[in-house]
């Protein structure tokens, strides 16, 4: 097994242009807001930020409107070094989205990250190894990457905080993190404080001093007496937003002095009062626009026009920006409201235009459906409660596959959970069907799908909706083991492919990849191996990076099973590992991972007599199981479990486990074959050769494996001639890999041995050994029986084949190794960072020395060591180094 993850063959884009929800990255989130002309630089705070570069973490922590963002933005711009910027959003609570954006922010700032880091496939999760790769990459940087996370209070998820802490900790000197937030993040700040590794700039420090307030008023063109400034600072407690609003209100007032006096004397809440003052001095159209755009996160003039129903947004926004009132430009014609002001304006909107919010969300959704991102369209559509429209937007975008690949664990998917029953168009039915199928609710899935198809048959010109239906139809076919239905769905999809906009198909490569995987799975089930391989190979080679990670790993798992069934166990193992690696690399969460890869590995382990490893893999596959299996997975599970039980001698349990737990429209020839074989082998092991013969002989033509088992049964019953006769029915060379051919060779050897032809028997055993060696296929030799022992012992002593066969104490074969020699396989790959530690272990460095050398803490090194010991199944340093050398990890 290789120790390093290989690059996947598809060249999947680590720098793909879309986040795990399939939406293009919002470029505006990587840009620090532009400083307004009236910005006042405060050197004492700039110095504090400079100091912050000496500690891994800087916390800029203060209330809304304290001037945090502009302070850091101004500092970052003048730093003269690249600074990565990310404005957090509520959607970042989904770790996959957060890390995808964080990686993109680093890349946008020119940080050269290795493409091997990958990117999260799923919105809802990120793989720990991805974070470790990122930390290791940052740790190796010559100069630290500086990252600002603005508005981090929007991401209160503990999970994200822990992941951030992990990366920050392990990146060591390679990363400087500046968190800008209204509330304390859930990082273990006490530890940072104790270690002096955090620079904190808190509310009290952010507050304006009277001198600074005078400076701020000055840039607004206002001169006040010292006493008046002091009074203002006292009233606002030095709050930046309060001072700024004061200046704006006074500027627009006929009598600025009096205006400020009134404010000072009053007892109103500061922003509330001042914002109302500034707002009421705006022209009516401007007020209307400001209230309406408060429902959206960011806007362009055209969107603002859509919300107001007028056409003056461009001029109004330009003026507001010029006056530095309320709006902040984000570049490329996008604007946002200052978050504090947006919140207050929404309160004003609700009072002035009650119940208008729904309509505004609807307008925003409709505008965004043409010019914005799908996620935002869906968010506003659902906020408006317009489910037919929202479903339509999803289906029209050809994004239905996202409910299976990305959206499911993401907030926008949750959004369809609120869907009300009155929406009853084809799109709503398609979304309902997809949701039910994604939850393994086959019955309702089919019901909603039929409803959608019925509605669509009345409206024939809708290729996009039909293609979505074809995908769901293929999934239903896979779940019900129904090849006819799968082929029909695939042919419908082929006909429709040219009728839908190519650009949308390109944007959603997961749709066809999923469809091909379902088609391949159904073909595999019904025994059409070549056709299955064609569809699955195409699906496994899908481009699209994270978007198609779910179908890719699923298809790879199926291809592994195909190889296994053809007897190529080493090849099956490689493919199964590729499937697992793909799932890990893109952080595919447990519920979306294909179980087949693990089950194939378990069966391979049984063939190699690595029974504990097989058990562990089956347990893992059982633990990851979600709801009912599809037929292929059920058959894979039955195969792995029954073969393991058989190998352990539990014949009755093996027979019970051999029957797949799935209902299917058509029977699967190979699944039935395997069930009969396990049953016959169990009978034979119990000593009932006759029962085995009865099961096998009537239908053994064209089934070499059955013929072999029947011949063994005849031999067990002492009928050498009949065994010979049966074997004559086989072709001279049986097609397939060693797992199919070696048993044939061995049973021929046994016949020769029993017939008194030891030379032929020896020759055949030698050939079997040679065929099995590369795949380390041990099981047929263990199952062969006592006759084989002298033949193996007689093999030439320098024959290399016996080394691999002879690793187990239980084998009937003569032991060659002198030590206890049992080396469990490496079941998990050693990470690059762990290899770094291993290399230093080999140099006899102490834990402390390794920690210093790798710029990490002693505890981190200890954690790596523990994980290395576990992965290599050793308990000591010396053993770890020796084992690592044996595995060529060093």
């Amino acid at each position: 097994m290789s120790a390093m993850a290989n690059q996947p063959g598809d060249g999947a884009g680590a720098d793909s242009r879309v986040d795990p929800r399939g939406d293009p990255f919002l470029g505006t989130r990587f840009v620090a807001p532009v400083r307004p002309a009236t910005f006042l630089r405060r050197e004492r705070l700039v110095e504090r930020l400079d100091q912050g570069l000496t500690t891994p973490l800087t916390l800029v922590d203060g209330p809304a409107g304290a001037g945090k963002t502009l302070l850091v933005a101004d500092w970052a711009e003048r730093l003269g070094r690249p600074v990565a910027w990310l404005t957090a959003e509520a959607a970042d609570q989904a770790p996959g989205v957060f890390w995808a954006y964080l990686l993109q922010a680093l890349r946008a700032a020119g940080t050269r990250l290795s493409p091997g880091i990958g990117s999260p496939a799923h919105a809802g999760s990120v793989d720990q190894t991805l974070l470790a790769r990122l930390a290791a990459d940052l740790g190796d940087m010559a100069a630290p990457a500086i990252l600002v996370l603005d508005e981090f209070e929007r991401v209160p998820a503990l999970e994200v905080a822990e992941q951030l802490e992990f990366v920050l900790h392990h990146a060591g000197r390679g990363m400087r993190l500046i968190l800008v937030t209204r509330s304390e993040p859930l990082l273990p700040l006490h530890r940072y404080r104790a270690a002096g590794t955090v620079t904190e700039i808190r509310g009290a420090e952010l507050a304006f001093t009277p001198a600074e307030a005078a400076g701020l008023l000055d840039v607004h063109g206002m001169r006040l007496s010292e006493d008046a400034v002091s009074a203002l600072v006292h009233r606002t407690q030095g709050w930046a937003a309060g001072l700024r609003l004061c200046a704006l209100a006074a500027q627009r007032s006929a009598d600025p002095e009096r205006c400020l006096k009134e404010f000072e004397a009053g007892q109103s809440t500061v922003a509330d009062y001042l914002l109302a003052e500034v707002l009421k001095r705006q022209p009516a159209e401007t007020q209307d626009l400001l209230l309406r755009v408060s429902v959206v996160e960011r806007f362009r003039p055209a969107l603002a026009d859509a919300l107001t129903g007028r056409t003056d947004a461009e001029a109004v926004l330009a003026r507001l920006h010029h006056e530095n009132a309320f709006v902040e430009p984000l570049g490329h014609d996008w604007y946002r409201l200052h978050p504090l002001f947006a919140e207050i304006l929404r309160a004003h909107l609700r009072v002035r235009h009650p119940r208008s919010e729904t309509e505004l969300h609807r307008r925003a959704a409709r505008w965004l459906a043409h010019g914005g991102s799908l996620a935002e369209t869906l968010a506003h559509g659902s906020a408006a409660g317009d489910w037919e429209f929202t479903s339509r937007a999803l289906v029209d975008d050809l994004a239905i596959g996202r409910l299976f690949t990305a959206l499911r664990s993401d907030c926008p998917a949750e959004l369809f959970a609120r869907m009300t029953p009155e929406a009853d168009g084809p799109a709503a039915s398609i979304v309902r069907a997809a949701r039910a199928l994604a939850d393994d609710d086959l019955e309702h899935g089919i019901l909603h799908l039929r409803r959608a198809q019925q509605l669509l048959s009345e409206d024939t010109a809708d290729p996009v909706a039909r293609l979505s239906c074809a995908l769901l139809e293929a999934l239903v076919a896979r779940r019900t083991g129904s090849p006819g239905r799968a082929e029909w769905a695939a042919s419908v999809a082929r006909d429709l492919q040219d009728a839908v906009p190519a650009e949308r198909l390109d944007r959603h490569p997961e749709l066809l990849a999923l469809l091909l995987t379902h088609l391949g799975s159904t073909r595999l089930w019904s025994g059409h191996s070549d056709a299955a391989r064609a569809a699955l190979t195409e699906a496994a080679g899908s481009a699209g990076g994270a978007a198609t990670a779910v179908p890719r790993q699923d298809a790879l798992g199926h291809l592994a099973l195909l190889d296994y069934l053809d007897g190529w166990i080493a090849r099956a193992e490689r493919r199964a590992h590729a499937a697992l690696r793909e799932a890990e690399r893109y952080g595919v969460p447990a519920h979306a991972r294909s179980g087949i890869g693990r089950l194939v590995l378990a069966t391979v382990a049984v063939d190699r007599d690595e029974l504990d490893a097989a058990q562990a893999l089956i347990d893992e596959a059982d633990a990851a199981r979600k709801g009912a299996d599809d037929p292929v997975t059920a058959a894979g599970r039955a195969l792995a479990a029954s073969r393991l039980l058989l190998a352990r001698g539990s014949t009755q349990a093996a027979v019970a486990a051999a029957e797949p737990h799935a209902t299917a429209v058509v029977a699967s020839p190979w699944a039935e074959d395997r069930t009969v074989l396990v049953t016959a082998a169990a009978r034979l092991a119990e000593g009932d050769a006759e029962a085995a013969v009865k099961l096998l002989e009537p239908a053994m033509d064209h089934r070499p494996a059955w013929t072999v088992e029947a011949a063994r049964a005849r031999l067990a019953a002492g009928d050498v001639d009949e065994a010979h006769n049966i074997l004559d029915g086989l072709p001279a060379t049986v097609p397939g890999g060693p797992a199919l051919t070696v048993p044939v060779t061995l049973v021929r050897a046994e016949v020769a041995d029993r017939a008194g032809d030891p030379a032929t028997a020896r020759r055949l055993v030698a050939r079997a050994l040679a065929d099995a060696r590369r795949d380390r296929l041990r099981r047929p030799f263990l199952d062969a029986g006592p006759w084989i022992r002298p033949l193996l012992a007689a093999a030439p002593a320098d024959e290399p084949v016996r080394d691999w066969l002879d690793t187990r104490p239980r084998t009937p074969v003569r032991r060659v190794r002198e030590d206890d020699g049992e080396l469990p396989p490496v079941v998990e790959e050693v990470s690059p960072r762990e290899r770094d530690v291993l290399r230093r272990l080999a140099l006899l460095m102490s834990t402390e020395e390794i920690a210093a050398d790798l710029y990490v803490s002693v505890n981190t090194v200890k954690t790596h060591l523990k994980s290395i010991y576990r992965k290599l199944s050793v308990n000591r340093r010396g053993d770890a180094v020796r084992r690592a050398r044996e595995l060529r990890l060093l």
Partner: protein
Amino acid sequence: MRYEIRIDGHLSKTLAEAFPELDHVVVCDQTLLYGPVVDEAHLYGLLARVQSLGLRLLEMRRVPE
């Protein structure tokens, strides 16, 4: 559970509407928001709303039914 949230300054009618589930009364130089709070999630939601509106929170306490 019933809670009482004390805010610094007089809250305008408009902004008080941002807390439709609570009653409010202006006392001295403070505003008192009070009423039933469904659960802890609601409580944290209220705190977040106070913060996002730029209000200065003075006190928050549970009061007898």
